[in-house]
Structures are given as structure tokens and as C-alpha cells.
């Protein structure tokens, strides 16, 4: 972004103030996350930077809140983590299978009422969660599935499918049909073509959609507030954080939050690798 030598003074000023503004926005975006990490290693019980921490004294830091997170009896973080992973795992499988199959149909040129059907399938992402949450709760309650494991998984599948549909349709929109036609002309059956040709090519899109579904379920809080119905055995990490945050900001929550930031960093790395891979093998983006 170096400016040419002949640039006038006022454009120079403008250019540098533009860079300063951009830096400020990037700091605004990312800094709040990094405030949490050091605070989770606080030796004190208060959520602020103690003098010792600012002076980088080793005794001002400790892992006691991580111990509390894992061994503390008051907070069922263990159950919460296990439940969150279970719900996310099963709902990701459901959402990915349903979403991918639907996306294959939706990307066909022959799909009838494409716009309308697409709008319906995307609606769980658009409609405010408070409405989705209460509607899903009422219908699950009618079936006797409220506050049960399958009920929560169904709710999370509903919320996760739009992301799979969007990412997989986007991947398929860059798909070159002549490849599958070539396969058929060489005598491949449609099933064989799908598994040998189409599926490997759209896999990055599917994985990226699955990741979205996973994160949607893993972070989901509004719908589960309605559907879990206060059952402690069905609690999840977000639900536990929500309860904690409503009472008091505790350093243990900072420790959990730090773990979640590490998790999202991992997810970010995976999506980046996927994007590069799909760009390399097909010359188009998976997203």
C-alpha cells in the first residue's frame, strides 16, 4: 500500500488516516476476545487486571479457575461439555445429510419452485430465534419430546440445515456439469458418477457446511433455553454460561470462554485449510 512519490499532501494525510481508521476497527473487532484470556489466569477472584498482573509478577497468575472448571462441584461444566458435544455431533450429522441432499436437488436446473422452496429452507436462519425457540418448544411438547435428548437434537437440526444448504448450493453453483456428463458418456452409472465424481468435488463445501451446523448447535442458546426446560442433566456449555452470567461474572466463566476461543481458533484454521484445498483442486472457492 505504498503511495507513489508524486502523491499530493492532502491525499497522503487522507491515506494515513484511512489506515488508522482501519486499524482501529480491527482492534475493535478482535481486542474484546483477547481481554478475556489473561483474566482467566487471574489469581484473584475479581475480574480486573490486578497490579500484580500488570507488573507481570508470576504469583498474580494461576490456573485455579481452570481447576475449578474441571473439578469444581458447583458448576456442572463436565456434563455441559459432554451434552454440547453430543447434541452438536448428532445434529451435525442430521443437518449435513438432509442439507446436502436438498442442495443437490436445489442446484438442479430442473428444480420446480426453486425460489420458494429455498426461502422456506433458509427461514430458520432468518426468523428471530425467540420465535423459533417457542414454536419448536410448543411442537416438541405436543409430541412429548420437550426436555429430552432427541427433542434438542431435532431443534438443532432445524437450526443447522440452512447453513449446510447455503454452503453446499454455493459450491455446486461453481460446479462444471460437463465433468459428470463426461463420466456418463464413458459408461458410468448415475450412482457411480455421484460417489466417484460429484461427491469428492463438493466435499470441501459439505465439510464447511457441517462445521457451520456444528458451531450453530454448539453455541446455540435461545432455543435450548426453551427446549431444555431447566433440566440440569440436559444443560449445555452456553446454557451454563448464560446462567452464570446472569448471576455474576466469575473467573471460571473466563476460563471456559478462553477454552471456547481456542476451539474457535481451531475451527478457523480448519476452514482456512479447506478453502485453500478447494481453491487448489478446482480453482474456485468453497464458500
Amino acid at each position: 500500500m505504498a503511495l507513489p512519490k508524486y502523491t499530493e499532501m492532502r491525499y497522503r494525510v487522507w491515506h494515513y488516516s484511512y489506515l488508522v481508521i482501519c486499524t482501529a476497527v480491527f482492534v475493535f473487532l478482535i481486542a474484546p476476545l483477547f481481554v478475556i484470556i489473561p483474566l482467566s489466569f487471574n489469581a484473584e477472584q475479581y475480574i480486573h487486571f490486578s497490579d500484580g498482573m500488570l507488573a507481570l509478577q508470576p504469583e498474580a497468575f494461576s490456573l485455579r479457575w481452570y481447576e475449578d472448571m474441571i473439578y469444581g462441584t458447583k458448576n456442572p461444566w463436565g456434563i455441559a461439555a459432554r451434552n454440547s458435544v453430543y447434541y452438536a455431533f448428532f445434529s451435525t450429522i442430521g443437518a449435513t445429510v438432509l442439507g446436502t441432499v436438498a442442495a443437490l436437488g436445489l442446484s438442479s436446473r430442473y428444480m420446480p419452485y426453486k425460489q420458494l422452496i429455498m426461502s422456506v429452507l433458509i427461514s430458520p436462519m432468518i426468523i428471530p430465534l425467540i420465535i423459533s425457540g417457542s414454536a419448536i418448544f410448543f411442537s416438541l411438547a405436543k409430541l412429548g419430546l420437550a426436555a429430552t435428548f432427541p427433542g434438542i437434537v431435532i431443534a438443532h437440526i432445524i437450526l443447522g440445515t440452512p447453513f449446510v444448504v447455503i454452503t453446499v448450493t454455493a459450491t455446486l453453483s461453481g460446479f462444471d456439469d460437463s465433468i459428470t456428463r463426461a463420466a456418463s458418456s464413458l459408461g458410468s452409472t448415475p450412482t457411480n458418477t455421484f460417489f466417484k465424481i460429484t461427491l469428492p468435488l463438493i466435499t470441501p463445501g459439505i465439510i464447511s457446511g457441517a462445521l457451520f451446523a456444528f458451531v450453530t448447535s454448539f453455541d446455540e442458546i435461545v432455543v435450548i433455553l426453551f427446549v431444555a426446560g431447566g433440566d440440569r442433566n440436559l444443560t449445555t456449555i452456553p446454557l451454563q454460561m448464560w446462567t452464570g452470567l446472569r448471576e455474576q461474572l466469575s473467573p471460571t466463566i473466563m476460563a471456559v470462554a478462553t477454552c471456547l476461543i481456542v476451539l474457535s481458533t481451531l475451527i478457523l484454521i480448519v476452514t482456512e485449510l479447506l478453502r485453500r484445498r478447494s481453491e487448489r483442486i478446482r480453482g474456485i472457492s468453497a464458500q
Partner: protein
Amino acid sequence: MTAEIRTSDGELLSVKLKKVERRRRTTAFLLAAPLLFFIVFAYVIPIFQMLGRSIDNAEMNSFLTETHEVMQTWDGSEMPGEDVTSTFYYELKTAVENKYHGKIATRLNYEKGGFTSLIKKTSRKLKNFDENANFLDQFIDVHKKWGDIEYWQALKRGTDAYHFRKYLTTFDYEQRFDGSIERIPEKLRINVTLWLRTIFVAVGVTFCCFILAYPISHLLSVLPTRYSNLLMICVLLPFWTSLLVRTSSWMVLLQKQGVLNDTLVSLGFVADESRLELMYNMTGTFIAMTQILLPFMVLPLYSVMKTISPSLMRAATSMGATPFHAFRKIYFPLTYAGISAGSILVFVLAIGYYITPALVGGAKGILISNRIAYHMQQSLDWSLATAMATVLLIAVLVVYWLYNKIVGIDNMRLG
């Protein structure tokens, strides 16, 4: 007449082509069908059923069917006759025997305050009634409220199978017993304030996101990939991070004893005793929501800006346009698609926001979603909650429809 072209198996080509096309249409539809049916039956229909609760009063109507029918001939101008009071007596008796009089009390209490205690007391005394004497007098003996004609009017209205009054309540209006529609007393008005605040926050957050996202999306789109990928982390990491983590980080920052206030005090900008009130008000909701929704504006803007060739701007300046003029006439119009996509996405998400306002907003920073949740979970006035939800849903669907018109749902991109 054109010559009839036939395929090798002797069929007309046009017929054959149509058949093939129909088969392809069916295949495509069958692929989408499982998800479509799942979403329709598990999601869309439940939403409509739930919204139906905002006008539905069938249960109450079934509890007091005969009373309701008899009351249709009563015009409500003077105290009801014995036909009404006796029917009500017998139906209430059945209700007490089958133990649903509590539900009747709760429902009627929404029509007029004081009904809960009235029905409960009456239910207890019902066995002392003399079925041969005047019922109205006996009702009044049990509780003097039965002498107030408004309670009978409320009973008539409260047993209608359908009602639209909750939509009036949604906008702080009420229907009097004489049928006139008026605003509720000023002290009780809260919903209109919340609607206006929700719209203000949604529009404001969308605008702030646009102002903040535009320069950085531009920077990301013009930088060499090596650097832009690094900077993209600043956008994508918050995007992938749990909403509760981001909200709690804002709580840490904005609290009165929080990091931001601490820093300002230690730098001497703010005196220790006059720390800024950044949380539990609109400021908190506004700042936190802007940061949380910013990636949803950056990503569509970035993907549009990435496609704009830098030579367009160079051409404009080489033909004598100032950089500002070239930006306004060439670059900015080319980014309209990204602006509309991002704005609509942010607006739709902001208008239904629930978690962040509940945690950061306090009483002064809550939005309409929080009020819906309150009526769903605490006051248990589901009719009102669903009436408010219907209005919110209509607002969102209008914006969604606009999005579809302007951007097209097929063009939605994530990440």
C-alpha cells in the same frame, strides 16, 4: 407442419424430451423433499400454530360454552338476567368439580384485574348456593365485585372463541368494554417504547456496522492475499466465536469496575467517583451488538469489493476525476449489492436480538425479543407473547422478501 422427428424407439422427440424433463424435475424435487417436509412439519407449521394462539381462545370458550351462548342475547347495558347467571353457575360448578376453574380465573384475569380472587372465592362458596333462589343476588353476596357490570362484560368478552385484542395491547392500546379503542394510561405504556427502541437499535447498529465495515472491507480487498488473509482472522475469529463469549467479554470491558473504566481512570481521563455508565443501558447494547454483528457486514461487502477491478478507478482518475469523485461515481455504486446484502442481514439479525440485550442491556437496554420472552416464560400471557411475535415476524419477513428481491436468496454467501 414441421416434420415429425422421432427417437430411435419410435417416440416423438418432443414427447420424449418432455418426459425426460419431467423425470429430471421429479428427481430434483425428491432430493429436496425430505428436508422440505422436515422443515415444513417441524418448523413452519408449528410457527403458524403458535402464532394462532394470539387470537385463539377456544379453550376458554369450551369451558363456558353455554354461558357464552346465553350471553350473546345480553347487550351488556344493564346487569345480566337469571338465564345468564344460572347458566354461569352450573358451568362454574362443573369447572370446580373437574378442577379447571383455576385456568378460567387466570384467563379472565387478563380481561380484567381482580378476576383471579373473584373466581377463587366464588368457587369455594359455590356449594352454599341455593339453586332455587336468585343467582345474581347470591353471586353479589359472595363478592361485591359481581355487582359491578364490568365483570360480567369481561366474562362475555373473555369467552369469545377468537379475539384480536392482544394486537391492540402490542401497541399499548386497549378496547374498553363499550367497544371504543383507546391508548392505555401513560404509566403502563411500555410496548411502543420497546418497538421504537428495537427499530432504532436495529437501524443504528446496521448503520454503524456499515460505517465501520466499509473501510476495512476495502482494505481487505486491495491488500495482497498474504496480508489480507492475516487480517481476515480479525473478522473470522469473532465470527466463529461463541456469542456468549463475545457478550461476556463486553461485560468485562464495560462494567463500572471493568477494564475500560479502569483504564480511563488510571489514565486520568475520568475521575474514580464518576466512572462511566457503559453497561445496563442502551450504550452497552449498542456497542456490543455492533461488534458482534460487524462480521456479517464485512463478509458480503468484501466478497463484492473483491470482484471490482482496480483499473476502473485508475481509468476514472486518468480521465481527470479526483479520487473522491471517482470513488463516489464509480466505486461506491459498484458496491451497492454488498451494502444491501450486508445491511439486510445485520438488520434482520439485530431486530430479533435477545441474548446480548438481556445480559448487557439491563432494564433500559432490552429489546422487543426480551419482552416476548418475558411474556412466554414469566407472565405466561402466551396470547400477548405470540401477538408480539407475529408483528415481529411480519417485520422480519418483509425485510427477508426485500432481500430476496434485491440480492436473491441464491446469492447468499457465508464465511
